[in-house]
């Protein structure tokens, strides 16, 4: 005999199947490479504009003879990192760079070739030289040097025009069929809702680290209350913002129920994480990856963040404190992926508003600039290398947009993100949907993963 409960479950499943097949048709063109394997992208956004000039410093770079530690120190002056504090790392080309001292864990992962650096990447509409930038009518990203605009351009990979979606969300749009029939969202943010996470069709799950999952306060007297709460989530009186608020609450409830159920009884991980904000966020990501099979997902995109990089003042002090949070947290996360046996399936990367002026400002800080260096970490990464082209450290030099050492990016965020998306399984035909300006650049795959 079929119980009512079983009947409902079966009915629900076949409903889900209906939705799925129709959805699969919609996305037929966007169909991508997702066998039964698992892959995850983890974006760590460094809010405020990380000063890449003090993240990785050229020491001796035969492949770029204009750069040297002394060139760097002569311009950075009071905020130059002492050469003996830097952690030297090599490249296959025979260059030596120095990692910031507080990135010691990440330097070690670089040395084991599981971490790569992408030099001078930033927002662009098309390739740009200093001469082109300075000429009238230059096609540049909107509102360079503005936090908000540059964050949105990094997250959307749309450097000119209005972006309603982020590239993580659009990647989810084309990849979520890989997760069928799971109803768990492809994107999960442990750092709130951001443009990166929002797709044309898909919206992220969000979970705050260190917080109980799901609704609190239910008890013996709240049955009727909780039922009415649920009923009202479908109440539609035609007001758009009410509908949106209800949809988000309903999603929150569904997501939480699925995750809480999946996590129930999961064994604790051996890897310990630092009890920092970024440490807790990445621990939460690891816990979700741990139950990927119970969530029945094959492709996941995560968003985490660390804020405070707007170092207009006390750059050396403030960035050191932030790196001391970032590096051990990222390393712990890498170790967790090893523990979970997914280190080759999880690729972690950094984004940030922009780089900062090479020339310091009053107050021993640096101001808003443009291109910067970023890190990609994971077992699939072709690490131990510096990708892209390192800028020439010179004021009003060939890479300086204006006069203070604001690097015109030599690699676009679109190329950076497209390389990650291709590894993730987005096929070539879908790349223009994710990255409308990608074809303006010479290569769509930088080869670091």
């Amino acid at each position: 005999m079929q119980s009512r409960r079983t009947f409902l479950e079966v009915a629900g499943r076949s409903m889900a199947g209906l939705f799925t097949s129709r959805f699969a048709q919609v996305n037929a063109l966007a169909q991508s490479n997702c066998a039964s394997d698992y892959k995850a992208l983890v974006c760590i956004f460094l809010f405020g504009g990380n000063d890449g000039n003090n993240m990785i410093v050229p020491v001796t770079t035969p492949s770029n003879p204009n750069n040297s530690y002394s060139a760097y120190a002569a311009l950075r002056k009071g905020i130059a990192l002492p050469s003996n504090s830097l952690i030297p790392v090599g490249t296959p080309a025979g260059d030596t760079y120095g990692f910031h001292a507080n990135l010691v864990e990440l330097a070690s992962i670089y040395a084991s070739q599981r971490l790569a650096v992408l030099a001078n990447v930033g927002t662009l509409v098309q390739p740009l030289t200093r001469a082109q930038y300075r000429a009238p009518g230059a096609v540049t990203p909107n509102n360079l040097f503005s936090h908000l605009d540059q964050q949105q351009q990094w997250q959307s990979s749309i450097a000119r025009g209005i972006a309603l979606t982020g590239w993580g969300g659009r990647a989810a749009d084309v990849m979520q069929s890989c997760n069928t029939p799971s109803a768990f969202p492809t994107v999960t943010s442990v750092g709130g809702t951001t443009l990166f996470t929002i797709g044309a069709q898909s919206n992220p799950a969000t979970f705050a680290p260190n917080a109980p999952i799901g609704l609190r306060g239910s008890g013996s007297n709240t049955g009727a209350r909780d039922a009415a709460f649920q009923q009202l989530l479908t109440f539609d009186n035609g007001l758009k913002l009410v509908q949106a608020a209800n949809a988000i609450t309903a999603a929150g409830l569904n997501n939480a129920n699925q995750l809480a159920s999946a996590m129930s009884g999961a064994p604790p991980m051996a890897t310990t994480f630092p009890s920092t904000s970024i440490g807790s966020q990445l621990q939460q990501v690891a816990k979700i990856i741990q139950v990927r099979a119970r969530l029945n997902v094959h492709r996941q995109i995560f968003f985490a963040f660390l804020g405070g990089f707007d170092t207009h003042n006390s750059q050396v002090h403030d960035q050191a404190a932030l790196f001391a949070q970032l590096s051990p947290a990222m390393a712990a996360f890498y170790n967790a992926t090893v523990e979970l046996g997914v280190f080759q399936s999880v690729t972690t990367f950094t984004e940030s508003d922009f780089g900062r002026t090479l020339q310091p400002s009053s107050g021993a800080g640096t101001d808003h600039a443009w291109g910067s260096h970023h890190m990609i970490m994971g077992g699939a990464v072709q690490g131990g290398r510096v990708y892209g082209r390192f800028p020439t450290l010179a004021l009003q030099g060939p890479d300086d947009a204006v006069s203070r050492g604001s690097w015109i990016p030599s690699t676009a965020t679109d190329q950076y993100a497209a390389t990650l998306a291709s590894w993730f399984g987005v096929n070539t035909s879908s790349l223009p949907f994710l990255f409308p300006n990608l074809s303006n650049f010479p290569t769509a795959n930088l080869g670091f993963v």
Partner: protein
Amino acid sequence: MPLRWNCLLLTAAAFLPLFCFGQVQVTIFPTSASPHAGTRTVDFTRTITGTNLDQVTWSLQTPAGQQGSPGSLDNRGRYTPPNAIPVPNTVTVVATSVADPSQKAFASITILHPYPTVASASPVRLPIGAFTISVNGAGFVRGATVLLGAQPFATTFVSANRLTAQGTTTSNQNGSKLSIAVMNPNPGSFTSVEPVRVTVGPEGGANAVAANVAARFLEQAAFGPDEDTAAHVRNVGLQGYLAEQFSAPISPYQNPDTIYGNKQVQARFFTNAVHGEDQLRQRVVFALSQIFVVSAVELNAPAELVPFPEILQRGAFGNYLTLMTEVTLSPSMGLYLNMVDNDIANAARGTLPNENYARELLQLFTVGTSMLNADGTVQRDATGNPVPTYAESTVIGLARVFTGWTYPLKPGAVPQKHNPQYFAGPMIAFESNHDENAKTVLGSIIPPGQTAFADLTAALSIIFNHPNVGPFVSKNLIQHLVTSNPSPAYVGRVAAAFNNNGAGVRGDLKAVVQAILLDPEARQGDSSASPTEGHLREPILLAVSALRGLGASVNDSNTLAPLIAPLGQNVFFPPSVFNYYAPNYMVPASLTAGGPALLGPEFQLHSPSSALGRADLINTFLYSKTGAGYGVDLTPFASLAGTPQLLLDKINSVFFRGQMPAAMQQHILTAINGTPGSIERARAALYVALTSGYYSAQN
């Protein structure tokens, strides 16, 4: 009938009559009375002893020369007062024995002025300035005074049915409703009840408003309605409320020397927001604090933080240029965005002036990144690209303008290039650390050789007069107070008020706030909601609105800030100068599918998990012990729970302006009926109501 012995004596012995007469006594009750003229009768009774002739004659005895009717007395001792007092105003009631007319009893009556009643007034609408008003009714006497809004006005007696009064009204009273009463003088001074009202100000000003209109107005002009304030707004009208609020005393912050940490400043924020009588100022300051942003993330102590909200409180209804100037010279902002101790270029150190304050002053506080039309829409070039407001050269020039400023002088300190940290009063200049070369700001040249203050004043004037400021600030304030998606026409009307307050003044925030709140688009929802109007209540607004409606009491030991912080809004601790959320954040595209893309700044905080966090917060308010700092007494709700419809009606009227959709009412009734016990019913009903999307998104 039994014969009394003294009467037997009277009839039996002729020598005994005197003795017998001496036995007749008349008494009267009451012995005095003070009826108002024109009122109902007074009944006197008498008692006779010493005779079997139980009869008296009743008469009135009036003072010599009395003018006017003394009233009348019938043959059974019923006194009817006159319609107006005689002069003098006393009369004596006399009861005289028929058996022995020498035996009398007396009662004194003092006749008081009549009770005045007001039936109507003419005109019903008073001009601003001098007025004469006729008040019609009854019982008016010479010496009566007309009271307007409880204030006496010069009054002329016309008749018992009409008075005239003269006086002046002020523009502050514009739109308000004044009650009319008449006070008769002594003797028996009395003021009329059930007043008639007149409106101050010309036709087209606000009328006294409907309950739903008053409540909705307080969602925009205050931290939400509570029952008393909503009733008050009904009486005084929208303009009347604004006029009162513009002059309401500021709910202050603490003297920083008397408190130990910013947690106490956070607590005071909630005390002020929940209970402050200056609700409009508190609400506008909350909005301004999300434009002119500092954060206690950097300002670690009350001495550093408190002066900043004080600037915003002082300046909320002042001029925007004054506010820009005070903010620019604030040591708190100076520390937060690095304008304090901003040094002139230093070749040895290889440094240039710090660009931080210069850039964010332009981008976030005044003109924004894109050129705007007068209605706030973005200007675009031939390729559709936004036209930038300024180039990097302006940021660099402005950074140089803002050199040379350091902390105000600590008592006893000697001025130097970098004064020790001190936050009382504006920053001061150290001229030799100021860049005196010419600068270009927004296309205007600031000449060389000027002092730090002259440069700063010139630069702020250039920025303030940029055409973007009006639409930029107006749209931002509209989004905080009324709606996320104002029409360009709405923005344009408010920006016009910013550009000129009607008296030729630019930047008058009082005019801007009035224009925002009284605009037809803000008021349109009073009668019918448009599908895209309103805005999501940000977490702090949600919490305070709920607490006000619940009648909560909050004091300075409250810990509301950490309770609300997990929702993404830790008061005074925004994560950056970019505030808790961005004004251009869009509601996720898939959630507005099939309609226009919608701005929803507060939705940036409304992730799926924080949406559940909202429900948890409401749960805490309703179900948890609240501690010393705030209390929620649900008795007024629970006492109605025996009749579910009454409980629902109260929730509807307090939190939903009496306009809760029927389907929602049904869900709440079901919840009430399915819950046992009064307090649990009240909790359940309030939980469902306050966690609903219909409450979360204010429309």
